[in-house]
């Protein structure tokens, strides 16, 4: 007993565990290169039960071969893993829970797998730690959720393990840094092994092992919006955003969501905004993926600089040929980085995005009763940046409008939600109570899953007009301003017409005619590009759309 108590504490257990894992894994590898046919046995050698494991699953790029291999490993060898990854997108990501390889999950987003995830949570197969925002989960990689083993995806590797990610760097740097410097095992899935990588995105001595996948990693073109399906109501809302917000505040630095509403804004910059003389005055710097609908605004000189969280399929040659606009490596291809893009957007002047439900305090949520989807990047982009100190025209003007409790002047980030009053199937976007409250109960969450909180929101844009919540003095005024743009939804029909008229007088509610928007211009003719083919033409043939968008 005495001997044990006096035994010196070991301070390198993680390091010794790392060395043991590397030694066990080396039996299945030649140097750092794992023999592909032995990938499953290799994983059984390096992963231990209860490990925290990160499977790189971003918006687009996925370590899909390694994810599938993990879902085929022996449950005797690997079980009760704690998965810490941003995006649950592929069936194997949930297979590992269904079969008991993994039990606990901390994640950000589960778009297409949302229904199945809800079922597995209900069956007790998944214990959800929390649904995070991107920056929040990456931050926890460096705090209490550091991975023991991470799978990342890259385009190419050399024999020393140097990685080239290509334009889709995305989350890789965050995962790599946290894993490699806390004695974690970093395994890279690559499309090809080469003698010399085009550029070093991850230094080889941070990488433990490399597996050459049988086919290129899966990439999803989630940021491509076909202009052909943009509606005239979306054009109208875009016109109101440009006049009522971008022009009014002089918004030069911003982040756009990725829906059709914001695509419509991008596509009327070279037409409507140009005619208003706003070139050089709005939308100059953006934090957003290289959405193809941005091409006309770039080509016409509106958007001068864009930092990207990830890339987009088909935009590789275009971005490479516009190094004044995009961030490009010495090899000539784009470099993306989700953390830095999120940070750049957080400290810019405006975020605008869409949502599924909004309540009378302005809280918005994409959670609906049957699905667990999560948030992605919107909560970070779409929140007041309270640590900001530098001034800009837009930030200071919004700051002057906001109601302050003390004397100290403050700036204010513009946080805008853009929605039609009715969504798919005539379901009202505006509700007295968010489904998120029910979801909290069903899935035993600590809080209702809210995407953008009402006190972060400054403007709400619908086809009816704009509610400026900065100018509302009370919660009652705020609720009536929201009802005032909620149209013919039950929430909108219950508006106090006299109070909305008073709010309109002080500019807290503005309709198209108050904004100088001529609805006769709200047609698809206003779009600088009306099809994917038009976007290809604007790009001078550099944009190479995925086949599913080649509908001409």
């Amino acid at each position: 007993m005495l001997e044990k108590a006096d035994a010196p504490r070991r301070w390198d257990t993680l390091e010794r565990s790392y060395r043991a894992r590397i030694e066990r894994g080396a039996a299945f590898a030649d140097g750092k290169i794992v023999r592909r046919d032995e990938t499953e046995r290799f994983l059984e050698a390096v992963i231990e039960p209860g490990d925290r494991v990160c499977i790189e699953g971003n918006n687009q790029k996925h370590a899909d071969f390694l994810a599938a291999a993990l879902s085929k490993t022996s449950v005797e060898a690997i079980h009760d893993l704690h998965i810490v990854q941003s995006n649950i997108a592929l069936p194997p990501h949930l297979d590992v829970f269904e079969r008991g390889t993994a039990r606990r999950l901390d994640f950000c987003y589960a778009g297409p797998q949302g229904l199945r995830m809800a079922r597995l949570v209900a069956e007790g197969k998944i214990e959800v730690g929390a649904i995070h925002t991107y920056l929040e989960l990456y931050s926890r990689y460096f705090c209490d959720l550091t991975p023991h083993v991470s799978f990342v995806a890259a385009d190419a590797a050399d024999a020393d393990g140097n990685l080239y990610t290509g334009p889709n760097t995305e989350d890789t740097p965050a995962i790599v840094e946290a894993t490699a410097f806390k004695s974690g095992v970093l395994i890279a899935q690559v499309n090809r092994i080469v003698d010399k990588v085009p550029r070093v995105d991850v230094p080889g001595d941070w990488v433990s092992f490399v597996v050459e996948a049988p086919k290129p990693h899966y990439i999803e073109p989630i940021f491509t919006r076909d202009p052909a399906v943009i509606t005239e109501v979306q054009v109208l809302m875009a016109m109101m955003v440009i006049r009522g917000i971008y022009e009014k505040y002089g918004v030069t630095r911003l982040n756009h969501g990725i829906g059709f509403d914001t695509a419509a804004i991008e596509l009327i910059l070279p037409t409507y905004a140009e005619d208003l003389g706003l070139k050089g005055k709005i939308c100059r710097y953006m934090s957003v993926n290289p959405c193809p609908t941005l091409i006309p605004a770039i080509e016409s000189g509106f958007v001068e600089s864009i930092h990207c969280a990830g890339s987009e399929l088909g935009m590789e040659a275009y971005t490479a040929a516009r190094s004044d606009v995009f961030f490009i490596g010495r090899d000539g291809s784009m470099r993306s980085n989700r953390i830095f893009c999120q940070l750049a957007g957080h400290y810019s002047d405006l975020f605008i995005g869409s949502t599924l439900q909004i309540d009378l305090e302005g809280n918005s949520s994409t959670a609906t009763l049957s699905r667990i989807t999560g948030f992605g990047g919107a909560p970070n982009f779409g929140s007041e940046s309270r640590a900001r100190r530098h001034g800009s025209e837009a930030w200071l003007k919004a700051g002057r409008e906001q109601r302050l409790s003390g004397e100290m002047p403050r700036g204010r980030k513009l946080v805008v939600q853009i929605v039609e009053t009715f969504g798919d199937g005539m379901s009202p976007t505006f509700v007295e109570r968010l489904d998120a409250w029910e979801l909290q109960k069903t899935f035993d969450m600590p809080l209702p899953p809210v995407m953008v909180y009402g006190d972060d929101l400054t403007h709400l844009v619908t086809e009816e007009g704009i509610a400026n919540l900065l100018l509302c003095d009370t919660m009652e005024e705020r609720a009536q301003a929201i009802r005032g743009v909620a149209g013919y939804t039950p929430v909108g029909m219950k508006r106090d017409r006299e109070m909305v008229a008073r709010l309109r007088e002080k500019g807290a509610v503005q309709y198209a005619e108050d904004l100088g928007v001529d609805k006769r211009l709200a047609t698809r003719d206003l779009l600088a590009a009306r099809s994917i083919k038009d976007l290809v033409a604007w790009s001078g043939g550099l944009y190479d759309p995925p086949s599913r968008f080649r509908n001409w």
Partner: protein
Amino acid sequence: MEHLEFDYDGTGAKPARAFALAGVVGSGNLEVLIEAADLGGRCAAVVDTSVRGYGETWRQVLADFFARHAMSDVRVSINDGGATPAVVSLRLDQAAAEIKDASA
């Protein structure tokens, strides 16, 4: 199909032009014809819609429309293919802007 008829007080001037047309009938869309008519200063609206059960919404959308534009002696005829109130109001406002525009 549902056929609806509404009638409202006129509040403003007679339109500058004889008629104006906006939109086309199609799924989720509608056709709006607005025309000058001798209605003794009142305004009327006739709606033929493919979707039943939204009479109260139509009444309110059209009441807000006439209040917004302050017109008299006009008849609005609508052929609706299941448009949302957003599209309905946009088409109505586009047609109203046309018929009120003396210079066009």
